[in-house]
């Protein structure tokens, strides 16, 4: 199977809602990075984690290497959160593998 499985592939939220994205890994990864793709297609780094949990404003990310997953939680979704989100995980072989992306649409 895919080394990085990202879910859901698409997500629709109303403003103010909370939700989460998840990446599952088929093998042990040593770090994970979460991105938001901006309107020009450029990836903006949201989080880089080697372990544990980080928070930044309305966003929180957790990486559990042992359990082979990472999550990105969005709280109080805003219209500007709309876009595509990617996780990218670095294996112990130093190879980086990307998830397939989650398209988030936030509506009024």
């Amino acid at each position, binding site marked *: 199977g895919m080394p990085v499985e990202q879910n859901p592939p698409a997500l629709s939220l109303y403003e103010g809602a909370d939700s989460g994205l998840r990446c599952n890994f088929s093998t042990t990864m040593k770090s994970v990075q979460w991105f938001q793709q901006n*309107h020009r*297609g*450029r990836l903006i*780094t949201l989080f*880089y984690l080697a372990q544990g949990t980080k928070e930044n404003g309305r966003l929180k990310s957790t990486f559990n290497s042992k359990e082979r997953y990472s999550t990105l939680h969005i709280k109080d979704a805003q219209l500007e959160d709309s876009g*595509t989100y990617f996780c990218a995980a670095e294996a112990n072989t130093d*190879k*980086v593998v990307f998830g397939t*992306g989650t*398209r988030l649409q936030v509506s009024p």
Partner: protein
Amino acid sequence: GPKVLQIPSHQIIDMGQMVTLNCDPVSNHLYFYWYKQILGQQMEFLVNFYNGKVMEKSKLFKDQFSVERPDGSYFTLKIQPTALEDSAVYFCASSPDRGGQNTLYFGAGTRLSVL
């Protein structure tokens, strides 16, 4: 699914030499990107490219860097001359159109080792 191919997967060169990293993007895609990841650090945006032109570049995209896609073939990143700090994995990506709702497709990366 669609694939972005990067050639070679690993390149070793001496400092001061020129290197060209090749990317074969998805065939009908129009936007192209390079990202750089130093070992153990997060991936950083370098440049995006459309219709033969650089659209946006970061401060990591030094004067020694250049990109082109001659005759719709490979999308290339050239570094001339190389420096030790250029050692990293370089990822190419392409997308069919610009915009936050369009999926980027990434290559597997080229590991550049500058000695």
